[in-house]
């Protein structure tokens, strides 16, 4: 076990010297091009989704706006065809859409005839606060749980990883209801309806945090136990460092790398989980806007959220790269 783990680390260690600089530059370039591809892919998918609305688009938009379903005369439809440029060839519409996106214009809502950015923008702050609190809580829960249970004998290890597996698969709609029932209705520790205060965010954030913590825990636990066998841990022990100190200062630092990667990836999932959580706790946020837009087939609003989440994903992954170099000094350039 010890033998295989030490050879594994050796092979993943970066090679010294000039080769490392070249590799970093290439990695950086591939990251940038990857980010652009993600954003372009999201924008194209968003456009295609709008174009794929079944039936005549002008009629569909008119009916979504009026909340009815009936045939319209060309005269009635003319202002809509005009406003959305529906007479243009598809390629031109696509270029218009991309051009508008580059200027930060996400389009106009079919339902409310307001700019999508206004609709989402006023709700986004609340959702982002919930998401970031949820991710921070997830780290806190995961680090405490893994530090308490990893590398402390087979029984604790089994309990620890079983809890990871179960929590990782809890759907937010059920977990949210469970926490609401136990802590708000039964024990009365927190308000039932979210509310804006600090007490109101605890349960919604925990609903997002617990599955994410389990998910990250699954990735961290194996690495954590492998790191406990590393020579530098032994040398820290020989210097007389306490067990908890070693676990937090040395082991956690290395073992947390997979969780850092997962956090960047999970940001989008956490935002969309927030949509469900906001429904359960009646919290303000993009949830209500998004769900009613999906129900009404108000595509510009839905695709607006998709494009925003893509942008946040890209930003999060840049932050993940930075965090990597801060945590693992072996990756830092000289």
């Amino acid at each position, binding site marked *: 076990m010890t033998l295989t783990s030490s050879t594994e680390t050796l092979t993943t260690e970066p090679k010294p010297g000039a080769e490392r600089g070249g590799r970093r530059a290439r990695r950086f370039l591939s990251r940038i091009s990857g980010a652009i591809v993600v954003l372009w892919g999201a924008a194209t998918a968003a456009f295609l989704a709008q174009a794929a609305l079944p039936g005549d688009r002008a009629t569909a938009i008119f009916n979504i706006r009026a909340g009815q379903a009936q045939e319209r005369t060309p005269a009635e439809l003319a202002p809509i065809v005009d406003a959305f440029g529906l007479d243009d060839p598809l390629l031109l519409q696509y270029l218009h859409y991309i051009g508008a996106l580059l200027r930060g214009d996400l389009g106009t809502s079919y339902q409310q005839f307001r700019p999508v950015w206004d609709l989402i923008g006023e709700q986004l702050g609340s959702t982002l606060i919930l998401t970031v609190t949820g991710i921070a809580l997830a780290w806190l829960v995961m680090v405490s749980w893994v530090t308490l249970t990893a590398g402390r004998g087979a029984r604790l290890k089994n309990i620890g990883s079983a809890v990871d597996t179960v929590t990782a698969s809890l759907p937010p709609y059920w977990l949210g209801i469970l926490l609401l029932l136990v802590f708000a209705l039964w024990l009365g520790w927190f308000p039932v309806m979210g509310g804006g205060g600090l007490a109101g965010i605890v349960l919604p954030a925990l609903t997002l945090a617990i599955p994410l913590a389990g998910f990250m825990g699954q990735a961290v636990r194996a690495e954590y136990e492998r790191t406990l066998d590393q020579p530098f841990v032994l040398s820290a022990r020989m210097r007389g460092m306490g067990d908890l100190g070693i676990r937090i200062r040395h082991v956690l630092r290395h073992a947390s790398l997979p969780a850092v990667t997962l956090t960047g990836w999970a940001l989008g999932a956490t935002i969309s989980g927030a949509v469900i959580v906001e429904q359960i706790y009646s919290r303000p946020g993009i949830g209500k806007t998004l*769900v009613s837009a999906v129900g009404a087939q108000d595509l510009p609003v839905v695709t607006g959220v998709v494009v925003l989440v893509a942008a946040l994903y890209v930003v999060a992954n840049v932050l993940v790269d930075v965090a990597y170099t801060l945590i693992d000094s072996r990756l830092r350039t000289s």
Partner: protein
Amino acid sequence: MTVIDVARATRSRARLDPALLASLAAVAFFLVAAVVPGFLSPHAPTALALDEALEPPSFAHWFGTDQIGRDLLSRVIHGARESLLIGFGAAGIAIVAAIVLGTLAALGGRVVSAVVSRAIEVVFAFPILLLALLLVSILGASAWTQVIAVGVSTAPGYARMVRGQILSAKNAGYVEAARALGHSPRRILTNHVLPNAIRPLVAVFTMALGQSIVWASGLSFLGLGVAPPSSEWGALLDAGRAFIMQAPWLTFIPGLIIVVFALAATTIGSRIQQNLEKGE
């Protein structure tokens, strides 16, 4: 593998642990419920009893009753068929799409494999729920949409898996041996690479089934899937939300059923996977 290793592997495979047994029992129960619901359910799922409305779980009604006195246990049992059909449909779409895309990504020409791999990665970057919501807003909310939306949104994750399996099977020792023996690339592909890449998908499909039901129920919960008169598990959960203060069991129990099914499917799937890995 030495003789002792083989002996140990067979012995541990023959032993059934309690978690696996419980999972198999749960899945078997729901399968029976889906095929012959009347056999298991104590009451008719639509039998009204207004004098027994919103009763908590008791011996007469194990899961309690809803606002018009319908027995929740019977509704859960009768909802199994629709829930499982949606789950099977979505998991089927996901796995078939994953096999096609994963094979193209791993074995296509240079351009095809680069484009498909990149596309899989880009779509994979998006949260499953958001993709599903996008598809629902194009197609309109219905049970069919739920199947398509969940199947398509979960496909990229499985496609990555298939691609990885094929690539690792392609580089395995036995392929090298077959190549050294002068077998044709096509024969190596159909006889060695694909079987070894696709066999693990039995395990993946089982897990996908559980996950599909979780995602589909999420859509119903948001009111964007099967509508409440149906007793699909997500729809039950959504319908129960209005009574969360007076009758918490109406939301707690359907949610628990979804989680139990998903956990059981995941447990069985990962056990199949372990056995396949051990067997190789």
